[in-house]
């Protein structure tokens, strides 16, 4: 191949290293920086650590000042979280205490406080509601947002700039302001305390965000790819699925995670617009009552359980997130 002058390797994607970062004297600076970052990270994680500890503390340990770092862990919190209990009267209490062997671990635990387990709580049910409502609204926001974003990016839309601003402006409103009108509206529609009502609400709120975010990602995909496909004989829709979508995965992943986090954590609307059937986890966890007020260990345990699905999703999508957050490759 003598006449193809393919000289030189392709430029690799490398991290430039500035003089002030690798100066021999800079090594001390590096150590100090690492220490500072570790300390700050630890401080940021303290609330999470406290929450984990609280989930395993007994009632007494939780309320006694000063806060205890070392304590005897117990599974009481989880008992309060997952079960409904009732106070035993004197007679039943004596009977139960007489035959400890017949009770399982949890029942024994309940007995310590003079209670018997009457059934499972609705915690798992609430979590399920959260999954259904947040999950469905996220999927809807991303899918609808994707098509809208594509249209805004590629087509001549009359009043495009105004429309985009209008979409963005829905985010400028604090949600709490509209809860009362929404409550009345939902009552009229019969959507109070329904899954569908909450899904539509969350989708409406997330859509503005997802359209803006996804439009940015799609703008980054050169239009020449689709034009080449059009010239080759593909329809726009086919070009969209075969060419735009594969390149937009990073953006879609990032948008999905952000929408999911908003819908998952949403508290105010969930509190006001749901009661029994469609109540999600956030309002129900925060208001768990025990015999003397809020059941802190249950709240902590419940929060842990609430945390896990989001952590898993974010972990699974972390590569896409990283790429998406850095908004695509550097172009010359």
């Amino acid at each position: 191949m003598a006449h193809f002058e393919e000289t030189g390797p392709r430029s690799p994607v490398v991290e430039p290293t500035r003089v002030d970062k690798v100066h021999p004297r800079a090594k001390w600076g590096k150590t100090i920086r690492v220490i500072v970052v570790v300390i700050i990270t630890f401080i940021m994680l303290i609330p999470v650590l406290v929450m984990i500890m609280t989930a395993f503390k007994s009632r007494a340990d939780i309320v006694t000042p000063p806060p205890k770092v070392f304590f005897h862990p117990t599974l009481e919190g989880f008992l309060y979280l997952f079960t409904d209990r009732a106070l035993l009267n004197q007679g039943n209490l004596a009977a139960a205490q007489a035959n400890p062997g017949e009770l399982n671990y949890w029942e024994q635990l309940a007995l310590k406080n003079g209670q018997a387990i009457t059934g499972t709580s609705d915690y798992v049910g609430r979590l399920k509601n959260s999954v259904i409502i947040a999950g469905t609204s996220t999927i809807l926001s991303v899918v609808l947002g994707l098509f809208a974003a594509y249209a805004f990016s590629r087509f001549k839309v009359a009043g495009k700039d105004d429309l985009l601003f209008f979409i963005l402006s829905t985010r400028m409103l604090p949600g709490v302001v509209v809860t009362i009108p929404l409550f009345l509206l939902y009552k009229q529609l019969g959507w109070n305390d329904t899954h569908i009502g909450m899904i539509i609400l969350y989708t409406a709120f997330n859509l503005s965000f997802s359209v803006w975010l996804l439009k940015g990602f799609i703008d980054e995909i050169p239009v020449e790819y689709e034009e080449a496909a059009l010239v080759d004989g593909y329809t726009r829709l086919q070009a969209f699925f075969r060419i735009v979508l594969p390149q937009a995965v990073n953006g879609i992943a990032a948008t999905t995670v952000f929408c999911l986090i908003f819908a998952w954590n949403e508290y105010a609307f969930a509190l006001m617009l749901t009661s029994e059937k469609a109540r999600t986890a956030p309002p129900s966890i925060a208001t768990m009552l025990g015999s003397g007020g809020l059941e802190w260990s249950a709240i902590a345990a419940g929060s842990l359980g609430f945390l896990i699905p989001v952590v898993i999703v974010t972990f699974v999508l972390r590569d896409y997130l990283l790429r998406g957050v850095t908004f695509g490759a550097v172009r010359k």
Partner: protein
Amino acid sequence: MSHVELRHLSKQFPGVTALDDISFDVKDGEFFVLLGPTGAGKTTTLRVIAGLEHQESGSVLFDGEAVDNLTPSDRDIALVFQQYSLYPTMSVYDNLAFPLRSPLRRKSAEEIRKKVEDTAEKLRISHLLKRKTAHLSGGEMQRVSIGRAIVRSPRVFLMDEPLSNLDAKLREALRIELQHLQKTQGSTTLFVTHDQIEALTMADRIAVLNEGRIIQIGTPEDIYDRPATTFIAQLVGSPRINLYNARREDDTISISDSDVHLPAPRGSKPPSEFLVGIRPENVNPDPKGNFTGQLVLAEPLGVETILHIQSGQRTLLSLVPGITSYHLGDVMKFNIAFEHIHYFGLNGDRLQS
């Protein structure tokens, strides 16, 4: 392959006339180049021919039939862009096969395989078929892009500055390949560029565009030897033509602000004030030369050297073979080949001699 004709194409963008009454034709099997500076309207012309943009008036014809109402895919054309033609998530094989897999074509997997392998061999990229496009060098990527255009055997090839993003050396190599490919395949090709060397080396004919209008159409020799305006004279030819204001008094022509006086040409004489153009290869250093100047800069290119000779307040460029041993500041005597001088009116148009 097709004969392409453009008749009175006009197109407006908000605030600017992109195309102003563009008309030309491309013969079947011809390599036709649209040359002009950035913003001249060459890419817009190409996109209108492709069907990606629509003109306000005028029509595009393939083999005598108007294609204005056809979608891009129905026009059976292939487009090669400057960059971003390859789908980054697919392998080279899939990129080449993509046009053949479109719903319009309905080819069997066996037919597709044969076509892809044939094309890869023509462009000498058979060894790259399994690679992901992200792992190719710039030249390899462009060859795959060209392959993707060829693989369908379309009626017309449209190329929009496909070599501009490549290293100089790669551009040289691909120019030769493209020309050879086009001549052996006999494909009607429309090639857009701002680089006059690409136009001169590859074109059968060139159309020079500026500000949405065609200024001259001709063979490379026509454009180089008889540029219709000073704009074209300066655009085509490297190093750039020497162009100056000049005056004629009876039979003597003087280049303003310099010590150069030339005899006026026989036959029709230029007006008293006009523009004179002298190509650097027609300024020849000669120890017995008629003119004198001082060397202010020498640019040795290897096969030839560009000498900047100052005469009065003007600097003339002279092109001489090889690498010279003149020193800056040397007094240079030189001649000018009178028969190759170009005369233009003050408005920039060529004067007939």
